[in-house]
């Protein structure tokens, strides 16, 4: 029996060694990250299907939380070569890593990137905006409520068991999104607690349940998003975005005062796909790069797909494939 075991062990050993000696990296194989939120997933799935079906690439995907860590991974390039739909006002790494003009529909929309150029970016076509929202029935019932300045007067209605006397904001669900909700509330003097629920879906489940019960609630979310179509929500119109130079990792998040970011709303986001410049400079990647330069998915299309996935519970691959089959006039213009 003992010899038998030894043989098994020995053969297993040699088996591993033999397969370990084969290793090959396919030339036009790319790895992308899967986004944290449905919109980002849709954008990347659209890109993946076009790259695979029309341009003959093989795309792998890795589930990885968005945030600076992902930007660093893309800059490194050995494990993840591109990721989709970063929202510049959420990313903090873009200022450090991007060094090029951002062009949308032939127009320069941002030309003050002064990073080290370790990551290359192209717009996706999606334009995002974010704010805090309250349900419309709350505004109807409280005509005195005009916007975020009045939140404190109604905080009792927004309080929950967890937050006690303070009101609750169903905040940005994922830390890597860099929303700084609590900081914003404190700077603006809003006596609310930001609740981070861990996933986008958990936050929205909480919000939908509150909506169905007709309770008052304050919710962070962004458009394009299915929530906007499904429920009537009113933005509280946070102050217009004013950037703050020192509020970043390098300066230990030193605030600029009560009238600059993060005490303001988010800027209008020309969302970007970001990729490793060295990898995409290779001749075999020219087609992929050409595609990313031209990709221009519009908000309405993405919103329709998000709705199919999140409201009707359909599979993302199937939904995107259906869109691709019916909209060849749109995506064919993106091909290099």
């Amino acid at each position, binding site marked *: *029996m*003992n*010899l*038998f*075991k030894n*043989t*098994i062990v020995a053969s*297993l050993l040699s088996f*591993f060694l033999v*397969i*370990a*000696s*084969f*290793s090959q990296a396919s030339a036009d194989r790319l790895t992308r990250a*899967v986004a*944290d939120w449905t919109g980002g997933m849709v954008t990347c799935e659209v890109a993946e299907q076009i790259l695979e079906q029309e341009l003959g690439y093989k795309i792998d995907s*890795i*589930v*990885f*939380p*968005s*945030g*600076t*860590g992902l*930007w*660093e*991974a893309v800059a*490194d390039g*050995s*494990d*993840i070569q591109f990721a989709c739909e970063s929202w510049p006002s959420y990313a*903090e790494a873009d200022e450090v890593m991007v060094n090029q003009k951002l062009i949308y529909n032939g127009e320069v929309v941002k030309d003050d990137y002064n990073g080290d150029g370790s990551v290359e970016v192209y717009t996706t076509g999606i334009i995002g905006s974010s704010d805090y929202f309250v349900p419309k029935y709350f505004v109807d019932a409280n005509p005195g409520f005009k916007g975020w300045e009045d939140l404190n007067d109604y905080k009792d209605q927004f309080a929950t*068991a*967890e937050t*006690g006397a303070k009101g609750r904001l169903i905040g940005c669900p*994922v*830390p*890597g999104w*860099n929303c700084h909700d609590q900081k914003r509330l404190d700077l603006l003097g809003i006596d609310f607690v930001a*609740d*981070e*629920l*861990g*996933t*986008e*879906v*958990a*936050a929205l*489940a*909480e919000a939908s*349940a509150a909506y169905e019960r007709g309770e008052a609630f304050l919710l962070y979310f962004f458009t394009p998003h299915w929530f906007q179509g499904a429920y009537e929500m009113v933005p509280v119109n946070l102050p217009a975005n004013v950037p703050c130079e020192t509020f970043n*990792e390098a300066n230990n998040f030193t605030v600029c005062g009560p009238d600059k970011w993060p005490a303001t709303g988010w800027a209008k986001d020309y969302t970007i796909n970001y990729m490793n410049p060295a990898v995409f400079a290779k001749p075999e990647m020219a087609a992929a790069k050409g595609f990313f330069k031209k990709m221009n998915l519009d908000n309405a299309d993405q919103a329709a797909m998000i709705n199919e996935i999140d409201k009707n519970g359909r599979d993302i691959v199937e939904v995107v494939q259906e869109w691709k089959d019916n909209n060849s006039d749109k995506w064919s213009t993106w091909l290099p």
Partner: protein
Amino acid sequence: MAFFTNISSSTNNYIENKLFSRLLIFIALAVSIIFVFIGDDVTEFPLFVTDSFTFTAWVNHGEDYLKEHYRWITKLIASYIKASYYALEDFLLDSSWLFIVAMLVIPSLAFGGLRLALLVLFGVLFWGAVDLWDSSMETLALMGLSVFLSVIVGVILGVLCGLSNRFERGMKPVLDTMQVMPAFVYLIPAMFFFGIGGAPAILATMIYSMPPIIRLTNLGIRQVPSETIETATAFGSNKLQTLFKVQVPLALPSIMMGVNQTIMMALALVVLATFIGAQGLGSEIWVAIRKLDVGWAMEGGLCVLFMAIMFDRFGKALSKETVTLPSDSQRFYLLPQTWDIYPLARIIEKPLGYIHFCFVLIFSSIFSAIASFLNIFISIFSKEFAESISKFILNHYFFFTGILILYGLSVYDSTIASIGAFPESWHVSLREPISNGVNSLTVNPTFISITKGIKAFVVIYLLKPLDLYLTYLPWWYTTLALVILSWISVGVRFAIITALLLFFIGACNIWTEAMITLSSVLISVLLCFVIGVPIGVLASYSKRFQNINEVILDAMQTLPYFCYLIPVLMFFGGGAFAALIATIVYSIPPIIRLTVLGLSQVSSTYSEVSKSFGGSTLQTLNKIKFPLATPSLVMGFNQTVMMAFAMQIVTPLIGGKGLGREVFNGLARSDTGRALAAGIAICLLAMILDRISLAWTKKQRDALGLS
């Protein structure tokens, strides 16, 4: 009733001494509550301390330095591991599904018999049936490679430990740290040095899963009787020969046990490693959790569970000694051997016995033919060699049959007809029924009101007040209290260490987070006691209940802790309360187990005597059994606390707060220092509570005269 007073008189002394200290504790509590009410904001460490103690920045600078100068080495290692991982993964993914089934079932048949083979077959088919075949293969590849490397490195280190006392002394603290440190803490640095995906996952898994194999190899080597070694030396073996021919073979059962434990731990971490980009079942579960798709997450969780059970049973079969049966009894292949008293079982087993006999006959004759052919052929060159070869083949016909079948399958697949992927018509989706079931439950008004009621109670009366109490209580007060506690229960040295550790947490500016973590751990442990002890008491009285209980607890402890989030998410949604429930579900088994153990260990003489003195069952339980079972209960407390701390790392996924979220924040912002500080803080809190409760157990034992 003299008996009762007698029993409790031994503890009486103890209690009287305690009266004074109880008064002190009461005063201390009262003062602390006053402090909490005076304080108008959460307590914070003095700014000059937190500003000058920039641990986070030091770690990040150190990391940058290492990255700059030594990254080429780590990249090289990573590229080797990655290459082997991709090769293994591609091999598993490209092989036909029948080949994989055969590859897993044949060894199980060989070592564990028909029962294990059927279990494995079911598990493997389940992966295919729920359409998670590819993810399962990825997890299998990750686990296979990390277990393989862990075993090689672990056995070498274990043998070194077994041979050298000095090496063992050096390894011991390292092993202790490896086991206490939450895996997340080194998962993140691993990512920065070794990249994303398979390579860092495998290396982190090695760190996590190697301690048992090192310890058990060491133990096995040391347990070899010195006479045996002396005999070997007397017969002229040199050191290496003694090692490989005597010590290692004799240590093999112990090593095999280590392999089994390593496999289980590796599986738990491989699933968790999805956070650094390792693919497989873990990422399926994670994506499902992110989408709140309970059915999908459940399918992934079940795949992991079956994989764990399969490997656990296989490992046990491997290390189990073969039992020789008396020649007249019928050998059972499927049913438990103890059932051979039932005629029906014998009838069922009869055909299986014949099949086995035919199988053995056919294959052994095929291989004896091959062997004698080889014998004739090779004996032209060397007679002795030929003899040994044919004998070898004959003795291992089962092994060669397996190889033959695998080879036949792959030849069939590549030349005759492609078997391809798992047949789609065999897919069975559990996703929708589970999701629909849960959804119908979660819109049920009674269910909503019950869960809301529990939630409101726990949050308003337990979680919220303790959170407030601990975060508002001045940091020096908390530190002082814990230091005094560790002084009384352990000693001066540990009191100083406690002070330093708490100071570290405060100086890293994560005091509030640490207190929130402490509060949720304490509340979950409290609730574990409230739920677990009655279950344990019931189980200690009813044998049948205990049997059912054992099965459930076994399954609970086999499941990687990531999977506990699923059912909780299912019923309670996200948030701090859900995180609390997940912690309770994960950490309740030890308290139930140790309650049962403690109560049933109480010598039956005591309970007999108590009964003969007219004590009712309740009296016996209350006055005799519980006091005597206290050490066991404290032990259960200790283990529950440890598990609750471990769980704090994954609860942020469903809305948990405190240090766990700090770790996540660090990961998301690629801020190693921040993640490391929070991870270390979790370790430190766990360590302080661990030492205090262990010392307390010892005192209790001494007081009861049990040690």
